[in-house]
């Protein structure tokens, strides 16, 4: 069964910490995405990558960075966690550009205290 795996389901971090969220897909997909999901706001795109070593800013990249050293892995980095980054983080992948649907991971619920 193909899947997207996010390394942690729940994380609690302190303000100012550097946080790494890992995402791995086993479908050989070209495109990978990081979203955050907040009640009433839906899914907001943070960063995306169409290929290895490539990254593009989404709608809300401030305070985040990403890394894609290998095709299957896309990491989201919170450089200095803040309380307003408390959220559900969702990783998704897609075969390539086009009308294909996304395959999502189970999400990481991050709480910054």
């Amino acid at each position, binding site marked *: 069964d193909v899947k997207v795996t996010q390394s942690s*389901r729940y994380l609690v971090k302190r303000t100012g910490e550097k946080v790494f969220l890992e995402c791995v897909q086993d479908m050989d997909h070209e495109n990978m995405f990081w979203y955050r999901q907040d009640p*009433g706001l*839906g*899914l907001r795109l943070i960063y995306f990558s169409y290929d290895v070593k490539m990254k593009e800013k989404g709608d809300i990249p401030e305070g985040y960075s990403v890394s894609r050293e290998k095709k299957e892995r896309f990491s989201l980095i919170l450089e200095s966690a803040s309380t307003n980054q408390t959220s559900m983080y*969702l990783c998704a992948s897609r075969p390539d550009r*086009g*009308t294909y649907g*996304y*395959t999502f991971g189970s*999400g990481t619920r991050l709480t910054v205290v």
Partner: protein
Amino acid sequence: TQLLEQSPQFLSIQEGENLTVYCNSSSVFSSLQWYRQEPGEGPVLLVTVVTGGEVKKLKRLTFQFGDARKDSSLHITAAQTGDTGLYLCAGFSYNNNDMRFGAGTRLTVKP
């Protein structure tokens, strides 16, 4: 401001009832997708509609893409408790390779 407006935001019904949820936009999309998300999990793709006026059925779920490819609806017949979840629509624009999600309709089906 959401590019895709979903309504209603919340819906609570009894098992066996029918329901329709809507996804509306002023933008034209190349395709539109519906996802269901259960608590603590990521969204799961239900269907992709591509052609204006297209209707797709998935067991008790019927999806329709508007003729102008700006809106969509999801109709559930004889809802079951297992249908409970957050239903998200997402519009894809091929020209700028952009996918936009609505905020979702949270459906609760009571036994």
